[in-house]
């Protein structure tokens, strides 16, 4: 059997080299809450078991907190004096290569599992090609070189492990059958792998949906040399069941899905309509990874507000129906086509459907693109057979070389933060976040130059201001750009009178019914800045906070800010009274109790200190505050 081991080894090596060379020492947006701003990770005390426990449970992402992924991030952080992104990225690369190996194992098993009835069968070289396509996909650069996407990677790793194990065992059972004990043992192993996948990221649960897909399309109820039709039906049932469950949930408890949309600037139906188009974008980015199309941020993709707004929405939906219908029709003769498409759609089902998540992220394709790789490899295999007179290696070269070049180009872009930001802004000029990202990268370069050389031209800062102004123009209803402008001016251009204009713009927008997470962060940063040293900004901060409260967007952030303003001695606010109001308003909030603790320490009131610590302990059911309390009580 020719597996093309040598060629695959070259692909693995090339991927390793290209990524290795591009592992620049910088973190990105979502790395903040998970790594750089997460003290449990960034200041991890290697020697303390308690610190490791804190690190493992330090994420509030998803319903599980993704402890396995957090543990792996902690492992990277543990042996560093000052936090560098490089070990994180190299570990991601290692996981990428491991995923490639597991994918190879899975696809080789899948190749063996193909039904005899299939007219179009995928050969071993096609499977090798699928692995190469997946490994080389430039689309995955934004996953592998983005430290926090370790979560998506680990989930994929365990899903692939589960698929490999299941297919391997299932082929044996198809020939020899299995005892009940073997079945239960397999179930236990797969359960364990699923738990590991889910504890990395919730997408890991999709393993349980992908297994029936393998069963239905490839194993087809074969058992002990014969066939069990009910087994195939069971697989089909298991395949349909999640859809039924989601539909039932949508009908029975729609608030479960809809509640999250309160914090979004798009509706449930808009998300569903948009995703139909976004899925085609994903396909395009995998199949034709043009640098101009790919990017770090894709908030420039317009939201579909109806089937014909934009018109491509309906077109995309029809295209999906047609493609699936065609694949279904060809399923018997060509199972890999339907398998690949359904693998892609199932892989996307969690993040690209009903849940109120952001619209587009490239890393969502890390697992689903396995399906696309199979489809593309299968199609190329079929093409190669048609071109049998010519050397198929030419076809491989024709595809492989550009792919390697595109991957190299993209990893090069990702090798430097400013280069990435500039490229992103150039290719996505309508992306507000892209402009913000650019302004941040430019400001960072200015700071670095200043630190290195003692002085720096203002060009970068002016360019950063210009980027923020473009952002404000692109997203006039949002206050994020104005908050960033205000903070930038306050830091670097303190004499600029436009600060007042920016503050007015923020205040005018603070009364919106819904504030996005970015806007809340921006407001917090502005208020924090105004409260620095209890300067004259405190009164302005109070006006801003009162405007927010008047708009009904009550949040602990604003209410706690009011307490800090009161502590600055702003007239009309008594700190103790504001704190008592806070306690009444947020009786189960740990943050408020920390404020009470600080106030008790200032007042040297021992009983109140103990009471505050006791309340924090009582509220902290998961014991995430222990290390902090341990340091505070210091007895």
């Amino acid at each position, binding site marked *: 059997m020719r597996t093309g081991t040598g060629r695959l080894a070259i692909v693995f090596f090339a991927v390793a080299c290209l990524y290795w060379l591009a592992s620049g020492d910088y973190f990105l947006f979502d790395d903040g809450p998970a790594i750089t701003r997460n003290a449990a990770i960034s200041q991890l005390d290697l020697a303390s*078991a308690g610190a490791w426990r804190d690190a493992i449970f330090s994420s509030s992402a998803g319903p599980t907190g993704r402890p396995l992924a957090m543990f792996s991030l902690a492992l990277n952080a543990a042996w560093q004096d000052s936090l560098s992104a490089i070990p994180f990225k190299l570990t991601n690369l290692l996981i990428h290569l491991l995923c490639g190996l597991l994918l190879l194992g899975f696809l080789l098993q899948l190749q063996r599992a193909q039904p005899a009835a299939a007219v179009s069968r995928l050969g071993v070289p096609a499977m090798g090609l699928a692995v190469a396509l997946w490994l080389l996909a430039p689309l995955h650069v934004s996953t592998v070189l983005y430290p926090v996407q370790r979560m998506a990677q680990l989930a994929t790793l365990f899903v692939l492990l589960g698929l490999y194990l299941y297919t391997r065992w299932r082929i044996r059972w198809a020939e020899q059958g299995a005892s009940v004990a073997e079945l239960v043992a397999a179930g236990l*192993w797969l359960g364990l792998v699923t738990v590991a996948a889910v504890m990395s990221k919730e997408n890991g649960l999709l393993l349980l949906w992908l297994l029936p897909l393998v069963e239905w399309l490839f194993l087809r109820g074969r058992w002990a040399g014969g066939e069990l039709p009910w087994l195939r039906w069971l697989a089909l049932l298991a395949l349909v069941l999640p859809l039924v469950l989601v539909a039932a949930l949508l009908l029975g408890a729609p608030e479960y899905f809809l509640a999250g949309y309160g914090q979004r600037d798009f509706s449930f139906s808009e998300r569903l309509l948009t995703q139909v188009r976004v899925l085609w974008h994903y396909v395009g980015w995998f199949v034709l990874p043009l640098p101009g199309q790919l990017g770090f941020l894709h908030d420039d993709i317009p939201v579909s507000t109806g089937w014909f707004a934009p018109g491509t929405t309906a077109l995309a939906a029809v295209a999906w129906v047609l493609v699936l219908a065609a694949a279904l029709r060809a399923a018997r003769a060509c199972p890999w086509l339907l398998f690949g498409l359904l693998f892609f759609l199932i892989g996307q089902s969690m993040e690209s459907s009903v849940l109120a998540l952001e619209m587009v992220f490239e890393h969502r394709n890390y697992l689903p693109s396995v399906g696309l790789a199979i489809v593309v490899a299968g199609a190329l295999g079929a093409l190669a057979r048609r071109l049998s007179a010519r050397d198929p290696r030419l076809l491989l070269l024709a595809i492989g070389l550009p792919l390697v070049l595109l991957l190299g180009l993209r990893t090069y872009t990702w090798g430097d933060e400013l280069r990435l930001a500039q490229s992103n802004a150039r290719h996505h000029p309508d992306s507000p976040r892209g402009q913000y990202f650019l302004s941040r990268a430019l400001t960072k370069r200015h700071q670095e130059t200043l630190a290195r050389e003692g002085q720096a031209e203002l060009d970068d800062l002016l360019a950063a201001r210009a980027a923020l102004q473009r952002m404000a123009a692109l997203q006039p209803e949002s206050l994020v750009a104005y908050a960033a402008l205000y903070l930038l001016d306050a830091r670097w251009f303190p004499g600029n009178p436009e600060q007042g204009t920016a503050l007015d713009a923020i205040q005018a927008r603070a009364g919106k019914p819904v504030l996005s997470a970015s806007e809340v962060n921006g407001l917090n940063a502005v208020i924090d800045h105004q409260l620095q040293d209890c300067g004259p900004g405190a009164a302005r901060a109070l006006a801003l906070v009162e405007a927010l409260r008047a708009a009904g967007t009550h949040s602990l952030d604003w209410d706690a800010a009011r307490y800090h303003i009161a502590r600055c001695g702003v007239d009309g606010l008594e700190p103790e009274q504001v704190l008592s109001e806070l306690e009444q308003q947020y009786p189960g909030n740990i943050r408020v109790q920390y404020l009470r603790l600080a106030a008790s320490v200032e007042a040297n009131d021992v009983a109140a200190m103990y009471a505050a610590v006791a309340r924090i302990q009582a509220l902290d059911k998961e014991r995430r505050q222990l290390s902090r309390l341990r340091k505070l009580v210091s007895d």
Partner: protein
Amino acid sequence: MRGREESGLVASIARSVWPCLLLVAILGFTLWVYWPGQLGGFILDDRSSLLRLQALAAHPQWFWDYVFGDHSGGLGRWVSMFTFALEHAFVDGSAATLKRHSILLHVLTGALVYWFAYLLCQSQRYRHGAWLGLLATTLWLLAPQQTSTVLYPVQRMAMLAAFFVLLALVFYLKGRAVLGVSRTAWGWWALCAASLGLAPFAKENGLLALPLIVVVEAAFLRGRLADGRVQPLLRSGSWALIGLGLLAVVAYFLIKFDSVQRGYDARSFTLQERLLTQPGILWDYVFQFYWPDLARMGVFHDDVRVSTSLLEPATALALASWLLLLPAFAFAALSGLAWAWPLLGLVLFFLGAHSMESSFFALELYFEHRNYLPAVALALLPAVLVGEVGRRWPPLSAPLLAWGAVPLLLLALKTVSQVQIWSSPTLLALHHLQGHPQSVRANTDMATRMAQLGGFEAALEFSRTGFHASQTQKAARLEREGDFRLRNIALACMAQVPLPRAELASLGRAHPERPIGDTNTLEVIVGLQSAGECPQFEWQALADRFAAIYLSEPESGRASVGVYTSLAVLMNALERMQDGSDYADLGLQQATDNTQLLLMSLHFATVLGEAERADELMSRLLDLERANRLSAADVTNLKIYL
């Protein structure tokens, strides 16, 4: 052929090397998890049992006095006291040192649990015996319930007893494995006998080693020899011994009934209530071991609900389930279901290991450290279940073992957080209070803490809550009002506030026949005074009040010997020699040969110039010295007056 043998040997070594490496890693991991726990301080019984050992630093010649001077539990616990005395004589004797050594002992005992579990699994011919042993060991080592034993210095006694019991069990199993095959069996049994001999002197629970060996023989080994033969004498003899043991316990209970019953005079619950409550507590130990409710864990369980009637559903259910469990497994085993034998053995092991402290003796109702040894049976249960499943369905062994890692990891993470709490006295005190708001001890502990930080009002509030709880919680020691008042006076001293006159005036008004029941608070006051903690305190006013209570109409039965001793010490410090002499005399009326009181009386008589009285006391003390009843410290003190 030779090559195949060699590859078999390599495979065999590989099979045993991996579990061994993992065992070392797990022992190291346990050490790492527990190590921060050494930062906490002394608690509860540590003070009464261990603090006096601090004198060893200045008087190393008293070493053996302390080792053999402990008479708690009837047998004395010289093995445990020996370790404590060593720590005080040669190291600093601090809480951190004691805890550090207890942590090391826990890890060492964990290694013994592994050895025991491995031998037991081997005797049952389970697949993956070494891995099953690891499963049991890890569970035992890292269960959060063990925290309150390992990090509670005085519980070294329970730990050492468990250590020697396990050592005896391991040596017995080693001897049994070669019985009838090799003469080395006798060597193992000699070691077993030595362990049996040491165990009870660590703590009386060590006496249980022998019954537990019998249980292991009866339910696990069942008279089977290494060569496959069955020794009927061993098989039936072990069951006969179990029966005889039960009869002996019943006989002891009947013969000593009055003495047992008398023990309950000092308790708020009765013998019947204890017997009704313990089945539920035993189940709680089980649940807390496997599925811990961390909020409830700790040292203070004096708020545990006391069962008063068999008609209470929870009581009846708990008792019935224990009573049914044994016959159910016994019936299954006798019906030919082989898997039931080890399960029966584990139930017997668990109950047997609890039989001393969780039965009819008038001890307090609930302490987590009581489960330290019995938990070996609980830790073995999953291993035995996996072993039995694996015997019937071999493919299931490996995935079940792998799944075992999941709960172990979760338990370990819980233990990490529990150790974090134990490493901070403040957090521990708050944790106890949160989990047991009606615990007398948790409240009084917090009162002390508040007072030490200067919060007298808050301290009084906790002291009041504790006192009220003592009146309502049956599991708690019933506190006399005099103890409550005295505690408030001590709290005032700690908080550096003036002697509270209202408390002083109320002291001794209630229960005039015996106004103060607890010696500990008085000892604390004596300690505070001698350490000069509150120099501005009106000590003489307090001494006057004591004199009004005890000396206006002297009657020996109004207080315990301990109270009179403490009062005599206090009066000596306050230079009220006549009062001191009177208190010593009152104490001596109850305990005529109490050497400490005799020496104090001698001291007072000498200072007061009562030569005749001094001669008489000297003569009595010399008689005691000749009878070898004076400790080295007593002799040193006596020499001062010779």
